[in-house]
């Protein structure tokens, strides 16, 4: 039974982007991810209509649990239909590049590219070490022989510029819609 004041259909729709991110990262394939998202939303809606979870603060964790099961089922289905000449999973590296790029519009990509090109090479180095090697500002500072505070500030400033450019790309995309 749906508690008063809750609107399951709205709550579920607001989960879509987060689920797309999670499914794309886990499955690496846009089509498989979309199927997983749809299945998760259907199951989540059923649960919400039954009044689960009772605590709205737990919605994220609850839906994540559903999504993990759906994604695990999708992985199993793919393994069953994998081609005979596929590289064994143990020997595979990362496949598919960055799957989340499917969520980026061309306009956003263009704006981010322009903003990145306007950063200094040193700032791009910091971003590279952060986004591709997962290094913290302290670790980056050790690698580059710079003070950690300076690295933190440079990264923060670079991200602020990229965030503004990204927003402009999103605005352009919305403006161009009919």
């Amino acid at each position, binding site marked *: 039974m749906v508690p008063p004041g809750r609107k399951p259909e709205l709550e579920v729709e607001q989960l879509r982007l987060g689920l797309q991110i*999670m499914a794309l990262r886990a499955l690496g394939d846009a089509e498989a991810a979309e199927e997983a998202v749809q299945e998760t939303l259907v199951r989540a809606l059923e649960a919400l209509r039954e009044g689960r979870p009772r605590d709205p603060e737990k919605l994220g*964790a609850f839906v994540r649990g559903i999504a993990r099961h759906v994604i695990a089922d999708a992985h199993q289905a793919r393994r069953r239909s994998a081609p005979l000449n596929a590289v064994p999973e143990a020997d595979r590296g990362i*496949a598919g590049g960055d799957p989340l790029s499917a969520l980026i519009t061309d306009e*956003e990509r263009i704006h981010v590219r322009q903003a990145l090109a306007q950063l200094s090479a040193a700032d791009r180095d910091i971003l590279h070490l952060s986004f591709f090697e997962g290094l913290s500002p302290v670790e980056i500072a050790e690698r580059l022989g710079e003070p950690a505070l300076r690295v933190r500030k440079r990264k923060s400033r670079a991200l602020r510029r990229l965030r503004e450019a990204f927003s402009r790309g999103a605005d352009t995309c919305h403006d161009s819609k009919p």
Partner: protein
Amino acid sequence: MEENLAEPLTCDAIVDQGMIERYLAGMLSEPEVEAFESHYLTCTRCQNELRLAAAIRDVLPEVQEAEPAPDVSPVPLPGRWLGRPARVGAVAAAIAAVLAGVLLVQPWHEETLPHREPALEAADAPTAEAPVGEVGTVAEFRWAPVASADLYKLTIYDAAGDVVWETEARETHVALPASLSFEPGALYLWQVDARVDWDRWASSELVQFRISEP
């Protein structure tokens, strides 16, 4: 660097801890992944930050490629040396020929797969784009798409012809895992195969690259 996960995550903590970057780089622990995913499923701000991070990861390598090589000296980490016998004879010969300045196209595939159908058209073969020659750093491998291909297989060799790393991909670029690094100054070669039909693969040329010495 694990956050105290008994407390609910906040957006500020996520930014301070660099969790978004580490999540996309596959470097969060399982409890951290669980906490972060449970948070961002209902957080618009973090979803947008994730999309921004994805855009940066998508575009940064090509912007860096266009610039003079950056002075970033990676800490040598144990690479993922597969160490199994290479397709030695033909590949070693191909690599030797490349080193001798002779450009080869697909010789070893035709030798090692005798059941292969007649040679594919040049238009079916992928073209390796980056990295090529001497580069400052390598974050990803990239090639031109083949219209009829539904799967690509990337293979990286060392100068001796041993396979260093291989993977499959559906896109035309593959990011390197953080655990793999290349020795500065050493020669490597790579090739990408495109699956253009069931059990038919078209190969790019064998391309060499080298990381600049510091």
